[in-house]
């Protein structure tokens, strides 16, 4: 049976269609989910896409967190549903308390849009198991508020427990603490990732296909679950 992966569209989401496409290229069936609908339609995993949900009013992700769909996502994530938050989705995951810390304004104040080198530092999450240990990849970033911050104590715990999923290599694009590009929750089913793996799934439209492994990883985790 083909796995069904939901992609939540919020008002102001930009990359929901790209995320659906990445899901399809990975071999799963994308399911469009609507922010105002608490019914997740029995999907096997959920992607929160990039964009500017609710115009990023107040803080990025602050209002999306209260969407009916998010109430269901938070509840089912607690039961092990794999959830990937990309860029704005990462901000939503932090605001909703599924992941620790917060994303703040890039230190340069510039919105950045470029192909970025990074290292996948954990292949033990639901979304990164298809990567080799410490695999170097190139995935586009495009963010204005990608500077990950958390208390030193939280950062220490994330590192000690292997929950830093990826770090920027070369120059740190946004001032993120300890070069963090992505983190996971304790169980490894929820991952927040600032770069855009859905924009690196085809040679024609991206810098390569390094991003595809996020989506094939989750398929594998569903089969073994």
């Amino acid at each position, binding site marked *: 049976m083909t796995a069904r992966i939901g992609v939540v569209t919020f008002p102001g989401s930009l990359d929901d269609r790209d995320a659906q496409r990445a899901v399809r290229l990975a071999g799963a069936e994308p399911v469009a989910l609507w922010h105002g609908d608490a019914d997740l339609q029995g999907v096997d995993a959920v992607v929160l896409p990039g964009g500017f949900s609710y115009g990023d009013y*107040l*803080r990025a992700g602050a209002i999306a967190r209260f969407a009916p769909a998010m109430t269901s996502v938070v509840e089912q994530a607690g039961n092990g549903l794999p959830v990937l938050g990309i860029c704005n989705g990462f901000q939503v995951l932090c605001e909703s308390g599924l992941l620790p810390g*917060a994303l703040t304004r890039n230190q340069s104040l510039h919105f950045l849009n470029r192909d970025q080198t990074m290292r996948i530092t954990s292949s033990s999450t639901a979304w990164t198991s298809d990567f080799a240990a410490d695999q170097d990849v190139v995935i586009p970033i495009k963010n204005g508020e990608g500077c990950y*911050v958390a208390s030193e104590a939280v950062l220490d715990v994330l590192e000690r427990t292997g929950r830093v999923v990826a770090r920027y290599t070369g120059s740190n694009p946004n001032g993120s603490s300890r070069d963090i590009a992505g983190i996971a929750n304790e169980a490894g089913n929820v991952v927040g990732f600032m770069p855009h793996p859905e924009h690196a799934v085809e040679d024609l439209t991206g810098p390569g296909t390094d991003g595809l492994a996020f989506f094939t990883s989750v398929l594998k985790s569903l089969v073994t679950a």
Partner: protein
Amino acid sequence: MPAYEVVVDVMLKPEILDPAGQAVSNALPSLGLPVATALRIGKHVELVLDAPDEAGALAQATTMAEVLLSNPVIEDFRVRLA
């Protein structure tokens, strides 16, 4: 119930870098204005709340600030009557 004007000021915590504040601070001397020894930028929220009394209005605003208006990971807030 009477209406109360309440103000919530939300500021980045002192240990969180404020790049927008830094940029504005750096712009002051370049415009020939006095140098600010410190400059932080935050959010100012004005509310009108129906409540039985001042304490009730402040309590409502505090709850709003805790749940939505601020993110406790990066921000502090202050609530006061306007």
